[in-house]
């Protein structure tokens, strides 16, 4: 077995290639041409040359020779790899070579030197990080993205505990307070700072405009009670309780964002409405992602007729203007369906229009990966098609798909808002921010109760946060760009 040459070439993702030669005078070459691989070349007997070579980033190349007179060469040509060359017996030469930055080099000849533990520098520590850790590092340094993330986490938490945060239920009407402006919360009474309270209000009809006006009654004082009993509701839809974040004692009432034409508390309705507004986009993106990622992968991998059919279909859909198609499809959702059906109907409408763009992007990525060596290698090792698609191609598109999906959510939220605003999307008795804004569509109502525009603020904050997070993810998905 002398002068035997064992060569294995691993190119690809999350693959571990081990080339091993057990007899002497052999040359062991393990080579990885693309990222994320672990390359181990190991020669167990003397006079061998072990060469592990990683040509692209994020790989770990380990060449090890366990007996003497061997030459160990580990070479990493691009960044962020860990190169370990180790020769365990004497007379060997260990060469670890890293041609570009950010890699850790560890040439070691055990017989001669024992590795002394030492503190790694910041740069060295970074070099040891996995791709995922690098992405997170990059993402967490993006202040806007983190802010967006925190805001979204907060909003989704509030959404989950809507019953607790909202002082009233989504449909509680206060007949005495129709189109009432936001209730003022006072802190100062008789020149002293006191526990926050609100005044009771009496309504009067303005003799000139015949509109209701509300006059605070300074004798009636209702202090704010935090975490106090109010209306009964089910927490997270499970536990029955009557505790609310803040309420005022009966017969007082508090509308921090005013009421609508039916005397329903706008703040409570916004909080309850977030359950639809914040989720319909996610469901829509999930649907469009499933369809888009599946068809994109299949279309890009197989090519030929399937690709042609899928591409032409996408072309047809992309040639219909988005907003009119949304309107037309939303109008087709029957208004007499039950709420759950309408909710999913609208989510499907939102996704039907957008899956094409997603499928195209996924196809592009798959097309690039299809010809790569690791897919060829997988095919040569009798990997079945499904496994290649599911284990090799899809995971590689994951970070891109995540970015695309995150950036698609704001569009869906805006789409739902626009449709519901026009009365074509979510319809009462369901409540979403778009439904709430629908009231503001009539200019007369809008001018009487300008606070009915407050839901727009929630839409704005959500959409901007998603944009921040999406931009942050996009930068993080490619952790080496711009370095």
């Amino acid at each position, binding site marked *: 077995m002398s002068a035997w040459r064992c060569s294995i070439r691993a190119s690809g993702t999350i693959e571990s290639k081990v080339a091993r030669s057990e007899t002497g005078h052999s040359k062991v070459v393990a080579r990885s041409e693309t990222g994320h691989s672990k390359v181990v070349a190991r020669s167990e007997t003397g006079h061998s040359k072990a060469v592990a070579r990683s040509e692209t980033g994020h790989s770990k190349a380990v060449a090890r020779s366990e007996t003497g007179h061997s030459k160990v060469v580990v070479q990493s040509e691009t960044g962020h790899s860990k190169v370990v060359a180790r020769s365990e017996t004497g007379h060997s030469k260990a060469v670890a070579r890293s041609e570009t930055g950010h890699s850790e080099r560890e040439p070691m000849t055990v017989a001669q030197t024992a590795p002394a533990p030492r503190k790694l520098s910041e740069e060295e520590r970074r070099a040891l990080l996995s791709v995922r850790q690098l992405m997170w590092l990059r993402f967490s340094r993006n202040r806007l993205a983190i802010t967006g993330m925190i805001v979204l986490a907060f909003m989704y938490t509030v959404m989950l505990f809507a019953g607790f945060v909202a002082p009233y239920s989504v449909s509680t009407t206060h007949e005495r307070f129709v189109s009432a402006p936001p209730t003022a919360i006072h802190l100062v009474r008789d020149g002293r700072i006191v526990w926050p309270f609100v005044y009771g209000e009496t309504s009067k009809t303005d003799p000139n405009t015949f509109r209701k006006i509300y006059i605070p009654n300074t004798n009636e004082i209702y202090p704010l009670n935090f975490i106090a009993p109010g209306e009964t509701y089910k927490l997270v839809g499970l536990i029955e309780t009557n505790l609310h974040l803040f309420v005022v004692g009966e017969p007082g009432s508090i509308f921090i964002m005013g009421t609508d034409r039916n005397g329903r508390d706008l703040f409570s309705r916004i909080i309850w409405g977030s359950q639809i507004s914040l989720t319909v986009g996610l469901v829509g993106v999930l649907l469009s992602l499933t369809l888009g990622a599946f068809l994109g992968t299949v279309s890009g991998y197989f090519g030929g007729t399937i690709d042609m059919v899928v591409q032409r279909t996408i072309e047809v859909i992309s040639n*219909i203007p988005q907003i009119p198609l949304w309107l037309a499809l939303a*109008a087709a959702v029957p208004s007499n369906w039950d709420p759950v059906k309408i909710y999913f109907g609208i989510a499907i409408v939102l996704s039907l229009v957008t899956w094409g763009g997603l499928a195209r992007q996924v196809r592009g990525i798959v097309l690039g990966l299809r010809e790569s060596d690791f897919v060829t290698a997988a095919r040569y090792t009798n990997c079945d098609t499904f496994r290649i698609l599911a284990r090799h191609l899809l995971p590689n598109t994951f970070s891109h798909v995540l970015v695309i999906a995150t950036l698609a959510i704001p569009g869906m939220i*805006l789409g739902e808002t*626009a449709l519901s605003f026009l009365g074509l999307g979510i319809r009462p008795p369901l409540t979403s921010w778009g439904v709430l804004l629908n009231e503001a569509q009539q*200019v007369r109502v*809008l001018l009487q109760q300008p606070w009915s*525009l407050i839901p*727009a603020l929630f839409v*704005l904050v959500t*959409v901007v946060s998603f944009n921040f997070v999406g931009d942050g993810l996009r930068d993080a998905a490619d952790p080496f760009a711009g370095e």
Partner: protein
Amino acid sequence: MLEYIIRRLLISIPILFIIAIIGFVTMELPQGDYVTRYIAQLEASGQSGARERGAELRKLYQLDDPAYKRFVTWIGRFVRGDFGDSFYYQKPVKTLIAQRLPLTLALTIPCFLISWAIGIAFGIFSATHQYSLADNVLTVVAFLGLGLPAFLVALVLIVATWQITGDVYTGLFSAEYAAAPWSLAKIADLAKHLAIPVGAVVFSGMAWVMRVMRGNLLDELRVNYVQAARAKGVPERMVIWRHAVRNAFHPLVMALGGVLAWLLSGTAIVEQVIGLPTLGPLFIQATMEQDIYLSGTILILLSSLLVLGNLLADVGLALLDPRIRYD
């Protein structure tokens, strides 16, 4: 190139035909039809002869024929330039669109020009002054524009102008000018009324153009040829305007493909909010009322413009960038 254009035009015929089918099916999807609801309304208001009128209308519009038959009749007429009649207005669709087209374009073309001009200018400024105070301010403005759809901006502007001036600017004219003959005062009044929709649309449109321009220019400025140009002493102004900006235009030129269709429908919801007699509200109303020939015609018209626009954009891209060839 010519061959490519002809090929694209030929391909677009089957595409448009499929879009026509999709459009027709979508319009047919809602339960019931316009005449049924119209007759129900007539009966509810106690008018006599509603049923006879209904039967007459159903026969006139062939509503009792199977859908595919109506589609064939409709598409057959469509290619000959007869788009059918609107149920609601009892007028030919062509007349309705022709009536509303001038005002729609008068509104959207300035919107487009202004928003792209401002967006491109701010985008370039933002990219060349990255992380400066002005860049940060513009970025915040851009994110506001991206987060608030134009129709909400319009609502905010309506409330704001009402708070400041005490006047409500909706519709096209104030009451006193609506029937008045054209005069300078009437034009001024019109301009005042159009300021809100134009402002709202420009704000949103500008935000998007600005973000795209800024992002692309920043990417371009990192590319080696910029460094090479700087190294050989090309003045910075030339580096940016002659080299980087020109290459950063690509995505915008691609987006121009959608502009033709956008001019007719992109501002629909804003127009609806303001109550303008333009194409957008006509389409929204037709969709809601199941006025299928009207909404179907507009949908196909928009799609044709999109197909044409995309072709023009591809040709434009080839002119802009000699690396792109289509044959």
